[in-house]
């Protein structure tokens, strides 16, 4: 391997691409070549580095300096000053609001963050399998195949306490054991990369930034449950993820890390990519399977569950991208190590995506149980423009809305539901006091009207009615009776809708009515919006 004195990581995640990182990368390569530095400094395009709203983002190693909003015209200065003369270009390192990230070191040293799933994101070139292997890639698979029985692998997963990160928080080890115990001609592993929850883009960036970790985890899952085929179901809009994972599969096959008789163990595993075509509900595992079978992505009646009756009626493990991302580490470092993170009940880390009125929007990975306050004010840099915090919606549009009093609630899969909310996919939408609750509620409900699959009554009809009633209130035509109807309707939907979409559609409304009822009442009684921002 050639020795470089410096590495420049250029973030190649989709948000940064949108901000023009490719041009920056080209300019950088060009400039280095022009100055004859291309033998000494290597430019690496990586996956998401985290602060996606500051793109294009680059990091210069070994110093670990993060430059944000880098434009092509800045490139010569960075090369001249930093790479040639060793002087950091302060002008581009931001205003220090990215505490802990500005002096970008090995992620393990980051103050609040804990990088297990994202350990390679922003460190390696995702299109290079060699770089993945160089950071212990495929060692976990090798360990499983050569040192462990399938039941040992499942036992490790059970002991680790890992629960699914796709929203339902089902214990992964237990899920695998159902499929492992099922007797069938064929079994399947599906990686659920249909990420569609508004405000969530973690799976996209994991797939873009570290595709091999997902492929490796799928093979491990395959070995554990006795499946030889896997599918990555990626939403059609995620073209870069599709490209990266497709390329990753090719590379792994070429190196014998996927395909027939991996490591001479006799275990074979193949992975294919399936593309979605625009339907949020296809993230629901049985809808996803319907879609993979070429049908309308409508959820199936459960039981039976996919673990025993999934794709083509065969036992199938469906796991979220982030869930899978944890697995190679857990295998290599053991369950005890993993339980060292997070809370006893909910070990490990969680990847969050921060959006809305927050200084630093983007991707972070933190231990389970961290408080909302810490995320918003210590990692996220607080609320911009001197405004104050009004509410945070956790878990995406189908999650609940928490007011300021709840800032110190620990964020994990068990505490948030007690507050009427959910951790869900890990989306965090922060809203400042300039926004109207009713207006936002209307926007949430519009989402569900559009995304309901239309199969079951409470959701098909109910989402439209929720939206209709909120809209009525928003334009000043609401009545107190409407609030009572909202409650009965929400109850029916939560209790009787066929799938999680209809069951959680009323959650935002219910929590808003709980914590911000006065604002609804102002719209009804005084026909007035307290924030003065909505249509009234």
């Amino acid at each position, binding site marked *: 391997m050639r020795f470089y004195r410096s590495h420049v990581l250029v973030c190649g995640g*989709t948000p940064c691409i949108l901000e023009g990182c490719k041009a920056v990368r080209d300019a950088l390569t060009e400039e280095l070549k022009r100055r004859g530095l291309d033998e000494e400094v290597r430019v690496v395009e990586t996956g998401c580095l985290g602060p996606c709203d500051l793109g294009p983002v680059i990091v210069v190693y070994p110093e670990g300096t993060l430059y944000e909003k880098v434009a092509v015209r800045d490139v010569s200065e960075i090369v001249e000053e930093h790479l040639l003369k060793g002087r950091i270009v302060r002008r581009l390192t931001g205003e220090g609001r990215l505490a802990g990230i500005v002096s970008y070191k090995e992620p393990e040293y980051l103050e609040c963050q804990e990088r297990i799933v994202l350990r390679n994101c922003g460190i390696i070139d995702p299109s290079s399998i060699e770089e993945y292997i160089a950071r212990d890639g495929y060692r976990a698979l090798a360990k499983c195949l050569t040192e462990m029985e399938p039941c040992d692998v499942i036992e490790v997963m059970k002991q680790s306490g890992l629960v699914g990160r796709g929203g339902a928080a089902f214990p992964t080890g237990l899920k695998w054991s159902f499929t492992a115990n099922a007797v069938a001609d064929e079994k399947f592993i599906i990686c659920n990369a249909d*990420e569609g929850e508004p405000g*969530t883009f973690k799976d996209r960036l994991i797939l873009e930034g570290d595709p091999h970790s997902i492929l490796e985890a799928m093979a491990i899952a395959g070995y554990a449950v006795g499946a030889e085929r896997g599918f990555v179901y990626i939403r059609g809009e995620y073209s870069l993820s599709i490209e990266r994972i497709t390329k990753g599969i090719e590379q792994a096959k070429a190196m014998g890390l996927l395909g027939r008789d991996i490591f001479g163990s006799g275990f074979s595993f193949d992975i294919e990519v399936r593309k979605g075509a625009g339907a949020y509900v296809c993230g629901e595992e049985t809808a996803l399977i319907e879609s993979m*079978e070429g*049908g309308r992505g409508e959820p199936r009646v459960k039981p039976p569950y996919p673990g025993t009756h999934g794709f083509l009626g065969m036992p199938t493990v469906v796991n979220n991208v982030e869930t899978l991302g944890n697995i190679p580490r857990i295998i290599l470092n053991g369950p005890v190590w993993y339980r060292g993170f997070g809370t006893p009940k909910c070990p490990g880390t969680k990847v969050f995506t921060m959006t809305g009125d927050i200084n630093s929007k983007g991707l972070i990975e933190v231990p389970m149980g961290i408080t909302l306050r810490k995320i918003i004010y210590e990692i996220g840099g607080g609320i911009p423009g001197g405004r104050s915090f009004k509410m945070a919606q956790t878990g995406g549009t189908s999650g609940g809305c928490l007011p300021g009093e709840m800032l110190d609630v620990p964020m994990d899969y068990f505490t948030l539901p007690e507050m009427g909310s959910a951790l869900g996919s890990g989306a965090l939408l922060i809203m400042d006091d300039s926004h109207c609750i009713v207006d936002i509620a209307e926007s949430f409900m519009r989402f569900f009207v559009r995304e309901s699959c239309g199969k079951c009554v409470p959701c098909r009809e109910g989402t439209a009615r929720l939206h209709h009633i909120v809209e009525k209130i928003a334009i000043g035509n609401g009545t107190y009776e409407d609030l009572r109807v909202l409650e009965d309707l929400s109850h029916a939907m939560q209790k009787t809708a066929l799938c999680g979409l209809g069951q959680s559609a009323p959650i935002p409304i219910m929590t808003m009515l709980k914590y911000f009822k006065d604002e609804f009442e102002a719209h009804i009684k005084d026909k007035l919006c307290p924030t003065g921002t909505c249509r009234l």
Partner: protein
Amino acid sequence: MDVMPASLDSLESTIKEIVARHGRSEHELLAILDDVQRAFGYLPENALIEVARNLDMPLGKVYGVATFYTLFSVEPVGEHVIRVCENAPCHLLGADTLIDVLSQELGIPMGGTTSCGKFTLKHTSCLGVCGVAPAIMIDDEVYGNLTPDDIPVILEKYR
């Protein structure tokens, strides 16, 4: 991958070729419809019939699938489809204004197609780039961190 735009005349052979590429299996329906739409711009009835025939599956089922997913259209659409995200993260940061500007610039409401057949304006579910909200997608290209001023500049590229 892009299939070359085909005229309706070569519909039969184009679809046969697409189906052959993916395999004659109902399970490939989404991938097949995706390619058929790339070839014809949308999913005309004739094309759906041809797909049903090639896969030996009920036309009603093919149509049911084609009308379920938002990336498919059974109606003709403009040469470029502009999808605007107006989900909460984008909504908070001004998606409504973007919609107003787009509608005004193009002279069409959401869901409409310009009379010249160049643009169709639709909404989309979250594009997964909420870190750079508000965002829109034109064909396969995503644009983020948009302000109303960006719109005319972006549209110019497609005009």
